[in-house]
Protein backbone atom coordinates (compact mmCIF):
# COMPACT_ATOMS: atom_id res chain seq x y z
CA UNK A 1 0.00 0.00 0.00
CA UNK A 2 2.66 2.44 1.12
CA UNK A 3 4.85 1.80 -1.89
CA UNK A 4 1.92 2.29 -4.18
CA UNK A 5 1.37 5.69 -2.66
CA UNK A 6 4.94 6.65 -3.32
CA UNK A 7 5.18 5.64 -6.93
CA UNK A 8 1.74 6.58 -8.08
CA UNK A 9 1.71 9.69 -10.20
CA UNK A 10 -1.23 11.99 -9.76
CA UNK A 11 -2.52 14.79 -11.85
CA UNK A 12 -3.22 16.70 -8.70
CA UNK A 13 0.49 16.75 -7.80
CA UNK A 14 1.15 18.49 -11.06
CA UNK A 15 -1.48 21.05 -10.19
CA UNK A 16 0.05 21.70 -6.79
CA UNK A 17 3.51 22.00 -8.26
CA UNK A 18 2.26 24.52 -10.78
CA UNK A 19 0.54 26.49 -8.03
CA UNK A 20 3.72 26.52 -5.96
CA UNK A 21 5.77 27.64 -8.91
CA UNK A 22 3.38 30.50 -9.61
CA UNK A 23 3.49 31.53 -5.96
CA UNK A 24 7.26 31.41 -5.92
CA UNK A 25 7.25 33.93 -8.74
CA UNK A 26 5.30 36.56 -6.89
CA UNK A 27 5.92 36.08 -3.17
CA UNK A 28 8.91 37.68 -1.48
CA UNK A 29 11.94 35.50 -1.03
CA UNK A 30 12.47 34.45 2.59
CA UNK A 31 16.12 33.54 2.11
CA UNK A 32 19.04 35.90 1.87
CA UNK A 33 20.86 35.29 -1.36
CA UNK A 34 23.60 37.73 -2.20
CA UNK A 35 21.65 40.93 -2.85
CA UNK A 36 22.95 42.30 -6.11
CA UNK A 37 20.06 42.73 -8.50
CA UNK A 38 18.04 45.91 -8.27
CA UNK A 39 14.95 44.57 -10.01
CA UNK A 40 13.78 41.01 -10.13
CA UNK A 41 10.94 39.48 -12.12
CA UNK A 42 8.61 39.55 -9.15
CA UNK A 43 9.23 43.27 -8.72
CA UNK A 44 7.85 43.82 -12.21
CA UNK A 45 4.81 41.79 -11.20
CA UNK A 46 4.27 44.00 -8.12
CA UNK A 47 4.71 47.09 -10.24
CA UNK A 48 2.13 45.93 -12.78
CA UNK A 49 -0.31 44.98 -10.05
CA UNK A 50 0.09 48.39 -8.40
CA UNK A 51 -0.50 50.12 -11.69
CA UNK A 52 -3.70 48.32 -12.67
CA UNK A 53 -5.19 47.91 -9.19
CA UNK A 54 -6.98 51.29 -8.96
CA UNK A 55 -8.20 50.91 -12.54
CA UNK A 56 -9.87 47.58 -11.78
CA UNK A 57 -11.07 48.43 -8.30
CA UNK A 58 -12.39 51.88 -8.92
CA UNK A 59 -14.18 52.67 -5.68
CA UNK A 60 -13.19 56.00 -4.22
CA UNK A 61 -13.00 54.52 -0.72
CA UNK A 62 -10.48 51.95 -1.87
CA UNK A 63 -8.38 54.66 -3.54
CA UNK A 64 -8.44 56.67 -0.33
CA UNK A 65 -7.33 53.67 1.71
CA UNK A 66 -4.52 52.91 -0.68
CA UNK A 67 -3.35 56.54 -0.60
CA UNK A 68 -3.19 56.39 3.19
CA UNK A 69 -1.50 52.99 3.05
CA UNK A 70 1.06 54.39 0.62
CA UNK A 71 1.89 57.29 2.93
CA UNK A 72 2.23 54.96 5.91
CA UNK A 73 4.33 52.64 3.77
CA UNK A 74 6.80 55.46 3.05
CA UNK A 75 6.99 56.11 6.77
CA UNK A 76 7.38 52.42 7.59
CA UNK A 77 10.02 51.99 4.88
CA UNK A 78 12.14 54.71 6.44
CA UNK A 79 11.71 53.21 9.87
CA UNK A 80 12.51 49.71 8.64
CA UNK A 81 15.92 50.90 7.49
CA UNK A 82 16.56 52.05 11.03
CA UNK A 83 14.72 49.30 12.89
CA UNK A 84 15.09 46.31 10.59
CA UNK A 85 18.51 46.90 9.07
CA UNK A 86 20.42 48.87 11.67
CA UNK A 87 18.59 47.12 14.52
CA UNK A 88 17.88 50.26 16.54
CA UNK A 89 14.55 51.10 18.15
CA UNK A 90 12.86 54.43 17.49
CA UNK A 91 9.44 55.35 18.81
CA UNK A 92 9.89 58.89 17.55
CA UNK A 93 9.15 58.50 13.90
CA UNK A 94 5.75 60.18 14.19
CA UNK A 95 7.53 63.39 15.17
CA UNK A 96 9.43 63.52 11.88
CA UNK A 97 6.19 62.79 10.07
CA UNK A 98 4.71 65.74 11.94
CA UNK A 99 7.68 67.98 11.17
CA UNK A 100 7.23 67.16 7.48
CA UNK A 101 3.51 67.88 7.58
CA UNK A 102 3.91 71.18 9.45
CA UNK A 103 6.76 72.35 7.24
CA UNK A 104 4.61 71.85 4.15
CA UNK A 105 1.53 73.36 5.79
CA UNK A 106 3.38 76.46 7.01
CA UNK A 107 5.34 77.02 3.81
CA UNK A 108 2.34 76.66 1.50
CA UNK A 109 -0.31 78.50 3.52
CA UNK A 110 1.80 81.32 5.00
CA UNK A 111 4.36 81.92 2.31
CA UNK A 112 2.60 80.59 -0.79
CA UNK A 113 5.54 78.39 -1.72
CA UNK A 114 4.68 75.74 -4.35
CA UNK A 115 3.92 72.32 -2.91
CA UNK A 116 6.67 70.67 -4.92
CA UNK A 117 9.30 72.87 -3.27
CA UNK A 118 7.68 72.42 0.14
CA UNK A 119 7.78 68.66 -0.43
CA UNK A 120 11.60 68.72 -0.62
CA UNK A 121 11.89 71.31 2.13
CA UNK A 122 9.90 69.01 4.44
CA UNK A 123 12.34 66.18 3.95
CA UNK A 124 15.31 68.49 4.51
CA UNK A 125 13.69 69.93 7.63
CA UNK A 126 12.97 66.46 9.07
CA UNK A 127 16.52 65.39 8.25
CA UNK A 128 18.03 68.43 9.96
CA UNK A 129 15.96 67.79 13.07
CA UNK A 130 16.92 64.12 13.00
CA UNK A 131 20.60 65.04 12.83
CA UNK A 132 20.33 67.45 15.75
CA UNK A 133 18.35 64.95 17.83
CA UNK A 134 20.31 61.90 16.75
CA UNK A 135 23.73 63.31 17.52
CA UNK A 136 23.26 63.11 21.30
CA UNK A 137 20.71 60.28 21.68
CA UNK A 138 22.08 57.68 19.26
CA UNK A 139 24.89 56.91 21.67
CA UNK A 140 22.17 55.23 23.74
CA UNK A 141 21.23 51.62 23.17
CA UNK A 142 18.11 49.44 23.38
CA UNK A 143 15.46 50.54 25.85
CA UNK A 144 17.19 53.82 26.59
CA UNK A 145 17.12 54.77 22.94
CA UNK A 146 13.42 53.83 22.76
CA UNK A 147 12.66 56.02 25.77
CA UNK A 148 14.69 58.94 24.46
CA UNK A 149 12.90 58.88 21.10
CA UNK A 150 9.59 58.56 22.91
CA UNK A 151 10.45 61.68 24.87
CA UNK A 152 11.19 63.44 21.61
CA UNK A 153 7.63 62.80 20.32
CA UNK A 154 6.15 64.25 23.49
CA UNK A 155 8.39 67.32 23.33
CA UNK A 156 7.44 67.83 19.71
CA UNK A 157 3.73 67.65 20.50
CA UNK A 158 4.05 70.09 23.38
CA UNK A 159 5.99 72.51 21.21
CA UNK A 160 3.35 72.30 18.49
CA UNK A 161 0.51 72.92 20.94
CA UNK A 162 2.25 75.78 22.72
CA UNK A 163 3.30 77.82 19.67
CA UNK A 164 -0.05 78.75 18.11
CA UNK A 165 1.53 81.66 16.26
CA UNK A 166 3.52 79.29 14.10
CA UNK A 167 1.60 76.00 14.13
CA UNK A 168 -1.97 77.00 14.90
CA UNK A 169 -1.79 75.34 18.30
CA UNK A 170 -4.28 72.59 19.12
CA UNK A 171 -6.47 73.43 16.14
CA UNK A 172 -3.72 73.07 13.58
CA UNK A 173 -3.40 74.51 10.11
CA UNK A 174 -6.12 74.20 7.48
CA UNK A 175 -6.29 74.80 3.78
CA UNK A 176 -3.09 73.21 2.60
CA UNK A 177 -3.35 73.15 -1.22
CA UNK A 178 -3.37 69.95 -3.30
CA UNK A 179 -0.02 68.68 -4.38
CA UNK A 180 0.69 70.08 -7.81
CA UNK A 181 3.52 69.66 -10.23
CA UNK A 182 4.02 71.85 -13.31
CA UNK A 183 0.38 72.97 -13.29
CA UNK A 184 -1.00 69.46 -12.85
CA UNK A 185 -2.97 69.23 -9.62
CA UNK A 186 -3.44 65.92 -7.80
CA UNK A 187 -7.00 66.66 -6.69
CA UNK A 188 -8.68 63.23 -6.66
CA UNK A 189 -7.83 60.10 -4.71
CA UNK A 190 -7.24 58.36 -8.02
CA UNK A 191 -4.50 60.80 -9.01
CA UNK A 192 -3.10 60.89 -5.51
CA UNK A 193 -2.78 57.11 -5.58
CA UNK A 194 -0.30 57.34 -8.44
CA UNK A 195 1.49 60.26 -6.79
CA UNK A 196 1.99 58.51 -3.46
CA UNK A 197 2.92 55.13 -4.87
CA UNK A 198 5.21 56.78 -7.40
CA UNK A 199 7.08 58.49 -4.59
CA UNK A 200 7.14 55.19 -2.70
CA UNK A 201 8.64 53.34 -5.68
CA UNK A 202 11.37 55.97 -5.96
CA UNK A 203 12.16 55.61 -2.27
CA UNK A 204 12.16 51.81 -2.53
CA UNK A 205 14.72 52.00 -5.32
CA UNK A 206 16.83 54.33 -3.19
CA UNK A 207 16.56 51.97 -0.22
CA UNK A 208 17.37 48.94 -2.33
CA UNK A 209 20.52 50.60 -3.59
CA UNK A 210 21.44 51.59 -0.08
CA UNK A 211 20.92 48.08 1.21
CA UNK A 212 23.04 46.39 -1.43
CA UNK A 213 25.90 48.87 -1.08
CA UNK A 214 28.60 49.08 1.55
CA UNK A 215 26.22 51.19 3.66
CA UNK A 216 23.68 48.38 3.87
CA UNK A 217 26.33 45.86 4.80
CA UNK A 218 27.65 48.18 7.49
CA UNK A 219 24.13 48.66 8.87
CA UNK A 220 23.51 44.94 9.14
CA UNK A 221 26.93 44.53 10.72
CA UNK A 222 26.07 47.16 13.32
CA UNK A 223 22.77 45.42 14.05
CA UNK A 224 24.40 42.05 14.67
CA UNK A 225 27.62 42.91 16.48
CA UNK A 226 28.85 46.42 17.18
CA UNK A 227 32.20 45.11 18.39
CA UNK A 228 32.86 43.28 15.15
CA UNK A 229 31.64 46.28 13.17
CA UNK A 230 34.08 48.64 14.82
CA UNK A 231 36.82 46.03 14.45
CA UNK A 232 36.54 46.36 10.67
CA UNK A 233 36.63 50.13 10.89
CA UNK A 234 32.94 51.00 10.77
CA UNK A 235 32.10 54.15 12.71
CA UNK A 236 29.06 52.75 14.48
CA UNK A 237 27.60 56.01 15.80
CA UNK A 238 28.04 57.77 12.46
CA UNK A 239 26.25 54.91 10.67
CA UNK A 240 23.34 55.07 13.09
CA UNK A 241 23.03 58.85 12.73
CA UNK A 242 23.18 58.56 8.95
CA UNK A 243 20.40 56.01 8.68
CA UNK A 244 18.33 57.85 11.29
CA UNK A 245 18.56 60.96 9.12
CA UNK A 246 17.60 59.02 5.97
CA UNK A 247 14.62 57.46 7.77
CA UNK A 248 13.55 60.89 9.01
CA UNK A 249 13.79 62.33 5.51
CA UNK A 250 11.47 59.56 4.31
CA UNK A 251 9.09 60.47 7.14
CA UNK A 252 9.34 64.10 6.04
CA UNK A 253 8.26 63.15 2.51
CA UNK A 254 5.37 61.14 3.94
CA UNK A 255 4.31 63.99 6.21
CA UNK A 256 4.37 66.46 3.35
CA UNK A 257 2.16 64.21 1.20
CA UNK A 258 -0.14 63.68 4.16
CA UNK A 259 -0.58 67.41 4.69
CA UNK A 260 -1.32 67.99 1.00
CA UNK A 261 -3.82 65.15 0.78
CA UNK A 262 -5.63 65.79 4.07
CA UNK A 263 -5.23 69.55 3.44
CA UNK A 264 -4.55 69.94 7.14
CA UNK A 265 -1.86 69.48 9.77
CA UNK A 266 -2.94 69.13 13.40
CA UNK A 267 -1.28 67.63 16.46
CA UNK A 268 -3.86 64.83 16.78
CA UNK A 269 -2.28 62.92 13.92
CA UNK A 270 1.28 62.66 15.22
CA UNK A 271 0.96 61.28 18.73
CA UNK A 272 2.63 58.38 20.42
CA UNK A 273 -0.12 55.97 19.35
CA UNK A 274 0.74 56.71 15.76
CA UNK A 275 4.43 56.07 16.41
CA UNK A 276 3.60 52.68 17.85
CA UNK A 277 1.37 51.93 14.88
CA UNK A 278 4.28 52.57 12.50
CA UNK A 279 6.55 50.33 14.56
CA UNK A 280 3.84 47.64 14.40
CA UNK A 281 3.71 48.01 10.61
CA UNK A 282 7.42 47.28 10.40
CA UNK A 283 7.34 44.41 12.87
CA UNK A 284 4.19 42.76 11.48
CA UNK A 285 5.35 43.24 7.91
CA UNK A 286 8.77 41.82 8.56
CA UNK A 287 12.05 43.39 9.50
CA UNK A 288 15.17 43.12 7.43
CA UNK A 289 13.11 43.08 4.23
CA UNK A 290 12.05 46.13 2.25
CA UNK A 291 8.67 44.77 1.15
CA UNK A 292 7.67 43.75 4.66
CA UNK A 293 6.88 47.23 5.99
CA UNK A 294 4.85 47.98 2.86
CA UNK A 295 2.80 44.83 3.33
CA UNK A 296 2.43 45.76 7.00
CA UNK A 297 1.29 49.29 6.14
CA UNK A 298 -1.33 48.08 3.67
CA UNK A 299 -2.55 45.42 6.07
CA UNK A 300 -2.82 47.70 9.11
CA UNK A 301 -4.51 50.50 7.17
CA UNK A 302 -7.05 48.06 5.84
CA UNK A 303 -7.53 46.46 9.25
CA UNK A 304 -8.10 49.83 10.94
CA UNK A 305 -10.70 50.63 8.32
CA UNK A 306 -12.53 47.32 8.66
CA UNK A 307 -12.47 47.39 12.47
CA UNK A 308 -13.82 50.94 12.42
CA UNK A 309 -17.23 49.38 11.86
CA UNK A 310 -17.16 47.59 15.22
CA UNK A 311 -16.56 50.73 17.23
CA UNK A 312 -16.51 49.44 20.79
CA UNK A 313 -14.91 46.06 20.09
CA UNK A 314 -12.33 47.28 17.64
CA UNK A 315 -9.44 47.63 20.09
CA UNK A 316 -9.81 44.15 21.56
CA UNK A 317 -10.10 42.58 18.11
CA UNK A 318 -7.05 44.59 17.12
CA UNK A 319 -5.08 43.22 20.04
CA UNK A 320 -6.19 39.67 19.35
CA UNK A 321 -5.14 39.88 15.71
CA UNK A 322 -1.75 41.29 16.69
CA UNK A 323 -1.14 38.48 19.14
CA UNK A 324 -2.16 35.81 16.63
CA UNK A 325 0.02 37.35 13.93
CA UNK A 326 3.03 37.54 16.20
CA UNK A 327 2.56 33.89 17.14
CA UNK A 328 2.11 32.57 13.61
CA UNK A 329 4.26 35.07 11.72
CA UNK A 330 7.02 35.83 14.21
CA UNK A 331 9.35 37.29 11.60
CA UNK A 332 6.69 39.24 9.75
CA UNK A 333 4.01 38.59 7.17
CA UNK A 334 6.38 39.25 4.28
CA UNK A 335 8.97 36.76 5.41
CA UNK A 336 6.63 33.95 6.42
CA UNK A 337 3.73 34.20 4.01
CA UNK A 338 5.13 31.95 1.34
CA UNK A 339 6.34 29.34 3.82
CA UNK A 340 2.88 29.28 5.36
CA UNK A 341 1.15 29.11 1.98
CA UNK A 342 3.38 26.31 0.74
CA UNK A 343 2.65 24.44 3.96
CA UNK A 344 -1.09 24.99 3.55
CA UNK A 345 -1.11 23.81 -0.05
CA UNK A 346 0.81 20.67 0.72
CA UNK A 347 -1.48 20.14 3.72
CA UNK A 348 -4.55 20.27 1.48
CA UNK A 349 -2.89 17.84 -0.85
CA UNK A 350 -2.17 15.37 1.93
CA UNK A 351 -5.65 15.79 3.40
CA UNK A 352 -7.43 15.02 0.14
CA UNK A 353 -5.23 12.00 -0.38
CA UNK A 354 -5.95 10.76 3.13
CA UNK A 355 -9.69 11.18 2.68
CA UNK A 356 -9.64 9.24 -0.55
CA UNK A 357 -7.69 6.42 1.07
CA UNK A 358 -10.19 6.15 3.88
CA UNK A 359 -13.06 5.77 1.46
Amino acid at each position, binding site marked *: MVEENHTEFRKRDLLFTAALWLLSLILPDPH*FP*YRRELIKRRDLFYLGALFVLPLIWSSSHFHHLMVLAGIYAILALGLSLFLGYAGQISLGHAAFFGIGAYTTAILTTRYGIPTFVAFWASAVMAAVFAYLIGKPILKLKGYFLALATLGFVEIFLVMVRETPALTGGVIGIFGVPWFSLAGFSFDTYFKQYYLVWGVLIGLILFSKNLVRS*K*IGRALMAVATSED*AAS*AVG*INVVQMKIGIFV*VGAAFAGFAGSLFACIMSTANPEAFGLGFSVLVVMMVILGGMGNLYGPIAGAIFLTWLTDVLGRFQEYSLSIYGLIFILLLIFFPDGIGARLNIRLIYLISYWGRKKRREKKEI
Partner: protein
Amino acid sequence: MSLLFADELIKNYDGVRALNKVSLRVERGTIKGLIGPNGAGKSTLFHLISGMERSDSGKIYFKGKEIAPLKPYEISRLGLARTFQTLQVWGNMTVVENVLTGMHTRLRGGFFSSGFWLPWVKRIEDEALKEAKEVLEFLGLLGKWTWPAFQLSFGEQKMLEMGRALAMRPDLLLLDEPAAGLTPAEVQKLADKICQIRQAGITILIVEHHMGMVMGVADEVAVLHNGELIAEGTPHAVRNNPQVIEAYLRGKKVDA
Protein backbone atom coordinates in the same frame (compact mmCIF):
# COMPACT_ATOMS: atom_id res chain seq x y z
CA MET B 1 61.11 50.63 15.04
CA SER B 2 58.67 47.97 16.06
CA LEU B 3 55.31 47.79 14.33
CA LEU B 4 53.53 47.47 17.65
CA PHE B 5 54.96 48.49 20.98
CA ALA B 6 52.96 48.23 24.20
CA ASP B 7 54.70 50.07 27.00
CA GLU B 8 54.14 49.05 30.64
CA LEU B 9 50.39 48.47 30.45
CA ILE B 10 48.43 48.26 33.68
CA LYS B 11 44.78 47.22 33.83
CA ASN B 12 42.68 46.60 36.92
CA TYR B 13 39.23 45.03 37.11
CA ASP B 14 37.52 45.83 40.41
CA GLY B 15 40.64 45.24 42.49
CA VAL B 16 42.02 42.40 40.40
CA ARG B 17 45.14 43.38 38.56
CA ALA B 18 44.69 41.79 35.12
CA LEU B 19 47.87 43.25 33.63
CA ASN B 20 50.84 44.43 35.64
CA LYS B 21 53.34 46.54 33.68
CA VAL B 22 53.27 44.35 30.59
CA SER B 23 55.45 45.48 27.70
CA LEU B 24 55.27 43.81 24.34
CA ARG B 25 57.03 44.40 21.05
CA VAL B 26 55.94 42.99 17.69
CA GLU B 27 58.46 43.42 14.88
CA ARG B 28 57.34 43.97 11.29
CA GLY B 29 56.97 40.81 9.23
CA THR B 30 57.09 38.34 12.11
CA ILE B 31 54.61 36.04 13.79
CA LYS B 32 54.43 36.50 17.51
CA GLY B 33 52.67 34.07 19.79
CA LEU B 34 51.20 35.02 23.13
CA ILE B 35 50.51 32.14 25.50
CA GLY B 36 49.55 31.70 29.09
CA PRO B 37 47.08 29.82 31.28
CA ASN B 38 43.45 30.90 31.60
CA GLY B 39 43.05 34.25 33.29
CA ALA B 40 46.62 35.28 32.55
CA GLY B 41 45.53 38.50 30.88
CA LYS B 42 45.99 37.56 27.23
CA SER B 43 42.54 38.64 26.11
CA THR B 44 42.76 41.79 28.21
CA LEU B 45 45.96 42.71 26.41
CA PHE B 46 44.19 42.12 23.09
CA HIS B 47 41.26 44.29 24.08
CA LEU B 48 43.62 47.08 25.10
CA ILE B 49 45.52 46.92 21.83
CA SER B 50 42.39 46.93 19.69
CA GLY B 51 40.93 49.78 21.75
CA MET B 52 37.87 47.98 23.05
CA GLU B 53 39.02 48.71 26.58
CA ARG B 54 41.16 51.45 28.09
CA SER B 55 44.29 50.72 30.09
CA ASP B 56 44.74 52.33 33.50
CA SER B 57 48.25 53.38 32.61
CA GLY B 58 50.81 52.74 29.90
CA LYS B 59 51.04 53.56 26.23
CA ILE B 60 50.54 51.63 23.02
CA TYR B 61 52.31 52.63 19.82
CA PHE B 62 51.31 51.29 16.42
CA LYS B 63 53.52 52.34 13.50
CA GLY B 64 55.07 54.89 15.88
CA LYS B 65 51.70 56.52 16.60
CA GLU B 66 50.10 56.37 20.00
CA ILE B 67 46.79 54.52 19.70
CA ALA B 68 45.65 54.13 23.30
CA PRO B 69 43.33 57.17 23.25
CA LEU B 70 41.76 56.29 19.87
CA LYS B 71 38.37 54.61 19.34
CA PRO B 72 38.31 51.00 18.09
CA TYR B 73 37.24 51.94 14.57
CA GLU B 74 40.00 54.54 14.31
CA ILE B 75 42.57 51.96 15.35
CA SER B 76 41.32 49.46 12.78
CA ARG B 77 41.49 52.16 10.11
CA LEU B 78 45.21 52.53 10.85
CA GLY B 79 45.68 48.96 9.63
CA LEU B 80 45.09 46.77 12.66
CA ALA B 81 42.64 43.92 12.15
CA ARG B 82 41.47 41.42 14.74
CA THR B 83 39.36 38.31 15.17
CA PHE B 84 37.41 37.41 18.27
CA GLN B 85 37.63 34.60 20.77
CA THR B 86 33.87 34.19 20.68
CA LEU B 87 32.87 34.06 17.03
CA GLN B 88 31.62 37.39 15.73
CA VAL B 89 30.63 36.43 12.20
CA TRP B 90 27.51 38.23 10.93
CA GLY B 91 25.31 35.18 10.57
CA ASN B 92 22.42 36.89 8.79
CA MET B 93 24.67 38.05 5.97
CA THR B 94 26.07 35.92 3.20
CA VAL B 95 29.64 34.70 3.25
CA VAL B 96 30.78 37.12 0.58
CA GLU B 97 29.02 40.02 2.27
CA ASN B 98 30.96 39.29 5.43
CA VAL B 99 34.19 39.64 3.50
CA LEU B 100 32.96 42.72 1.62
CA THR B 101 32.12 44.36 4.93
CA GLY B 102 35.73 43.88 5.90
CA MET B 103 36.62 46.20 3.01
CA HIS B 104 34.29 48.89 4.33
CA THR B 105 36.91 51.54 4.97
CA ARG B 106 38.70 50.94 1.69
CA LEU B 107 35.55 51.44 -0.43
CA ARG B 108 34.43 54.92 -1.34
CA GLY B 109 30.79 55.91 -1.12
CA GLY B 110 28.39 57.51 1.32
CA PHE B 111 24.64 57.45 1.85
CA PHE B 112 23.82 59.53 -1.21
CA SER B 113 26.17 58.05 -3.75
CA SER B 114 25.16 54.54 -2.66
CA GLY B 115 21.46 55.33 -2.61
CA PHE B 116 21.52 56.73 -6.13
CA TRP B 117 23.92 53.99 -7.23
CA LEU B 118 26.17 56.37 -9.15
CA PRO B 119 28.19 54.77 -11.94
CA TRP B 120 31.42 54.68 -9.96
CA VAL B 121 29.69 52.95 -7.04
CA LYS B 122 28.82 50.07 -9.34
CA ARG B 123 32.40 49.90 -10.59
CA ILE B 124 33.78 49.88 -7.05
CA GLU B 125 31.30 47.21 -5.97
CA ASP B 126 32.29 44.99 -8.88
CA GLU B 127 35.97 45.33 -8.09
CA ALA B 128 35.31 44.68 -4.41
CA LEU B 129 33.34 41.55 -5.27
CA LYS B 130 36.23 40.25 -7.34
CA GLU B 131 38.67 40.88 -4.54
CA ALA B 132 36.37 39.30 -1.94
CA LYS B 133 36.19 36.18 -4.06
CA GLU B 134 39.98 36.05 -4.16
CA VAL B 135 40.08 36.16 -0.38
CA LEU B 136 37.47 33.39 -0.20
CA GLU B 137 39.42 31.31 -2.69
CA PHE B 138 42.54 31.66 -0.54
CA LEU B 139 40.59 30.38 2.47
CA GLY B 140 38.84 27.61 0.52
CA LEU B 141 35.35 29.04 0.98
CA LEU B 142 34.69 30.15 -2.59
CA GLY B 143 32.25 27.28 -3.19
CA LYS B 144 29.95 28.67 -0.49
CA TRP B 145 30.15 32.36 -1.25
CA THR B 146 26.39 32.89 -1.44
CA TRP B 147 25.58 30.89 1.69
CA PRO B 148 24.25 32.67 4.75
CA ALA B 149 27.20 32.69 7.14
CA PHE B 150 25.36 30.92 9.96
CA GLN B 151 25.08 27.80 7.82
CA LEU B 152 28.84 27.32 7.74
CA SER B 153 30.52 24.90 10.13
CA PHE B 154 32.35 26.28 13.15
CA GLY B 155 35.74 25.88 11.53
CA GLU B 156 34.59 27.58 8.36
CA GLN B 157 33.14 30.46 10.35
CA LYS B 158 36.51 30.92 12.04
CA MET B 159 38.12 30.99 8.60
CA LEU B 160 35.54 33.48 7.43
CA GLU B 161 36.27 35.73 10.37
CA MET B 162 39.94 35.63 9.40
CA GLY B 163 38.97 36.37 5.81
CA ARG B 164 37.04 39.41 6.93
CA ALA B 165 40.12 40.66 8.78
CA LEU B 166 42.31 39.96 5.75
CA ALA B 167 39.94 41.89 3.50
CA MET B 168 40.92 44.98 5.45
CA ARG B 169 44.48 44.55 4.09
CA PRO B 170 45.89 45.12 7.56
CA ASP B 171 49.52 45.61 8.55
CA LEU B 172 48.98 43.77 11.81
CA LEU B 173 46.55 40.90 12.29
CA LEU B 174 45.52 39.96 15.82
CA LEU B 175 44.19 36.41 16.03
CA ASP B 176 42.38 35.60 19.28
CA GLU B 177 42.50 31.82 19.79
CA PRO B 178 42.05 30.91 16.12
CA ALA B 179 42.51 27.19 16.76
CA ALA B 180 40.07 26.86 19.65
CA GLY B 181 37.46 24.25 18.87
CA LEU B 182 38.96 23.14 15.57
CA THR B 183 39.74 19.57 14.53
CA PRO B 184 43.45 18.61 14.14
CA ALA B 185 43.11 18.71 10.36
CA GLU B 186 41.61 22.18 10.50
CA VAL B 187 44.36 23.33 12.86
CA GLN B 188 46.98 22.14 10.36
CA LYS B 189 45.21 23.99 7.57
CA LEU B 190 45.01 27.09 9.71
CA ALA B 191 48.73 26.94 10.46
CA ASP B 192 49.46 26.72 6.72
CA LYS B 193 47.25 29.71 6.03
CA ILE B 194 48.88 31.74 8.79
CA CYS B 195 52.33 31.08 7.29
CA GLN B 196 51.04 32.10 3.86
CA ILE B 197 49.57 35.31 5.28
CA ARG B 198 52.95 36.18 6.82
CA GLN B 199 54.62 35.63 3.46
CA ALA B 200 52.21 38.19 2.01
CA GLY B 201 53.81 40.73 4.33
CA ILE B 202 51.28 40.84 7.15
CA THR B 203 52.55 40.81 10.72
CA ILE B 204 50.61 38.50 13.03
CA LEU B 205 50.06 38.36 16.77
CA ILE B 206 48.38 35.16 17.98
CA VAL B 207 46.85 34.39 21.34
CA GLU B 208 46.49 30.66 21.56
CA HIS B 209 46.02 27.70 23.86
CA HIS B 210 46.97 25.17 21.22
CA MET B 211 50.65 24.79 22.08
CA GLY B 212 51.60 22.75 19.05
CA MET B 213 50.34 25.32 16.60
CA VAL B 214 51.91 28.35 18.27
CA MET B 215 55.26 26.65 18.73
CA GLY B 216 55.24 25.49 15.12
CA VAL B 217 54.21 28.79 13.55
CA ALA B 218 55.58 31.62 15.70
CA ASP B 219 58.99 33.23 15.33
CA GLU B 220 58.84 34.49 18.87
CA VAL B 221 56.69 33.59 21.86
CA ALA B 222 55.77 35.64 24.91
CA VAL B 223 54.38 34.02 28.03
CA LEU B 224 51.92 35.78 30.34
CA HIS B 225 51.21 34.52 33.83
CA ASN B 226 49.01 36.25 36.41
CA GLY B 227 49.19 39.48 34.48
CA GLU B 228 52.97 39.52 34.17
CA LEU B 229 55.23 38.77 31.29
CA ILE B 230 57.46 35.98 32.56
CA ALA B 231 59.33 34.95 29.44
CA GLU B 232 59.92 36.02 25.88
CA GLY B 233 62.01 34.50 23.11
CA THR B 234 62.12 31.85 20.42
CA PRO B 235 59.77 28.90 20.85
CA HIS B 236 62.73 26.67 21.67
CA ALA B 237 64.04 28.97 24.40
CA VAL B 238 60.61 29.47 25.91
CA ARG B 239 59.89 25.77 25.92
CA ASN B 240 63.01 25.14 27.98
CA ASN B 241 62.64 28.16 30.25
CA PRO B 242 62.40 26.78 33.79
CA GLN B 243 60.14 29.61 34.91
CA VAL B 244 57.65 28.82 32.18
CA ILE B 245 57.71 25.13 32.94
CA GLU B 246 57.20 25.91 36.58
CA ALA B 247 54.49 28.55 36.33
CA TYR B 248 52.53 27.68 33.27
CA LEU B 249 53.04 24.01 32.57
CA ARG B 250 53.19 22.94 36.21
CA GLY B 251 56.33 20.88 35.70
CA LYS B 252 55.16 19.04 32.59
CA LYS B 253 57.36 19.43 29.53
CA VAL B 254 55.73 21.02 26.49
CA ASP B 255 54.99 18.51 23.78
CA ALA B 256 55.34 19.19 20.06
